[in-house]
């Protein structure tokens, strides 16, 4: 953790603002890739709180992302035409609405996390993984069948509110919150819960509550990431949030090293860039991607970027 986390956050927000200011001068393709990276970093860092630091294997992150994506898109689709009319609002007005929509998306995802977490966090290991996987699918199938949310066609014509500023700002906020949390006295309980549940309870921790808190915070940021994603792609369909997306995020966490925020950030960047870099090989792209993944996992099972001594024994 940087010695002055608040200052680091402020610096990161100013940096985001700066990048936004000069964004006209960048190649739009690179900006798009950077946006994709940012969204994946938010997803991976927030999942790392659940899977890495607290040691609860969740496979439902894409489900929470979809809740955030749908709800925030619904908010902007409803309010933007009523408030701003045909011409759209000023940058500040649109920014305000977007922030509201993102928070609504995050909070509803957090609420979904609470609903899923309370009954399922009594389970452990593979059982928890299966239940979260099931819940993720239930959420997706629900969206697929709700006509007012576009059904299988999804939602279209979402206003393009996601700018590089919002993405970088929320990347910074996510990293800030997760880092400060796990380094606090309260947050050490997450690590303790992972290390040994019985010992944690024996010293008086309410491990169930810790697991639920981790789950809810993780879901909140997944919802934010979903909102950013929706206003970036401008169209969302239920199939974009199926369990392969969850697994993609889990892979980032595992590759980065469970419970290692820096490693997970690097892994998220690497795994988002990889398919882009592999574009020239066209149809063999995903084959090569999968092959590289296998090689990476065989070479560094403890996490690609896990260099800390004594941490590998999970």
């Amino acid at each position, binding site marked *: 953790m940087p010695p002055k986390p608040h200052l680091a956050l402020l610096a990161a927000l100013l940096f985001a603002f700066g990048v936004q200011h000069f964004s006209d001068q960048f190649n739009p393709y690179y900006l798009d890739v950077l946006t994709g990276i940012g969204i994946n970093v938010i997803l991976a860092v927030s999942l790392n709180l659940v899977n890495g630091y607290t040691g609860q294997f969740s496979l439902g992150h894409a489900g929470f992302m979809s809740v955030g994506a749908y709800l925030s898109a619904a908010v902007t689709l409803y309010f933007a035409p009523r408030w701003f009319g045909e011409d759209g609002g000023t940058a500040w007005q649109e920014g305000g609405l977007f922030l509201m929509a993102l928070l609504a998306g995050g909070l509803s995802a957090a609420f979904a996390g609470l609903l899923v977490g309370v009954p399922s966090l009594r389970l452990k290991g593979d059982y928890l993984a299966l239940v979260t996987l099931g819940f993720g699918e239930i959420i997706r199938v629900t969206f697929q069948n709700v006509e007012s949310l576009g059904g299988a066609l999804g939602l279209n014509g979402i206003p393009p509110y996601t700018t590089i500023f919002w993405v970088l700002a929320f990347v910074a906020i996510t990293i800030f919150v997760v880092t400060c949390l796990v380094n606090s*006295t309260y947050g*050490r*309980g997450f*690590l*303790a819960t*992972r*290390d*040994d549940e*019985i*010992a*944690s*309870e*024996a*010293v*008086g*921790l*309410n491990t169930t509550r810790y697991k639920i808190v981790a789950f809810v915070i993780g879901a909140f940021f997944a919802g934010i990431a979903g909102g950013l994603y929706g206003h970036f792609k401008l169209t969302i369909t239920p199939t974009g949030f199926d369990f392969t997306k969850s697994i993609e995020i889990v892979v980032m966490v595992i590759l980065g090293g469970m*419970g290692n925020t820096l490693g997970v950030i690097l892994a998220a960047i690497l795994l988002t860039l990889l398919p882009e870099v592999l574009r020239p090989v066209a149809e063999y792209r995903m084959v090569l991607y999968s092959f590289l993944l296998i090689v990476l996992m065989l070479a560094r099972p403890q996490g690609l970027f896990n260099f800390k*001594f*004594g*941490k590998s*024994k*999970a």
Partner: protein
Amino acid sequence: MLRITDLSVSYGAISALDGISFAIEQGAIVTLIGGNGAGKTTTLRTISGLLRPKAGRIEFLGEDITKLRPHQIVARGLCHVPEGRMIFSNLTVDENLAMGAYLQSDDELIARNRDYVFSIFPRLKERIRQMAGTLSGGEQQMLAIGRALMGNPKFLMLDEPSLGIAPRLISTIFEKIVEINQQHGITILLVEQNANLALEVSRTAYVLETGHIVMQGESKQLRTDPQLKATYLGG
């Protein structure tokens, strides 16, 4: 101080404890001995709320704690050092101790307990910034006991403190257990496979066999009991 009445616990269809009763007075060291699968660990885990009993009653300081959750029981001053040195291996020694004081809010008391832990286990102070997982077996056991002491217990339950520890350290740890009891008046319930050692330090003892208490009495007398000698003390 602690009163167990007709306690029965089962894992699914398999009964682990079948109606055991005993009481422990304030200030005592009481030991529970018995072979593998006798129900010793089950007894401790049920008292600390980690397991739910099928029937029976557990009273601590006159209060019924049978249905309380583990963290509520710790808050009442009943701390458990689990079997197999369950320390937080990815936290440092200092952080492990801080976790032990999780329910304490009085900073002065925490600092005093911390000094006390370091005074009985100076080894821990030397390794304060070290990851707990890299400590030796004996040091981990010291840390587990130290962590429980950080919770400012009135009653301490120790599960197999001698398990997997170098013989020389075992006697040190048992000396410290007696010291904790005598200097701080902390009542101790000790579960041990090493019956000789357990009977040496304790005042009263209960012998468990397949979920029943088969023998009880003063430790001094039990040590000379021919039947017990043959079964647990190696002749």
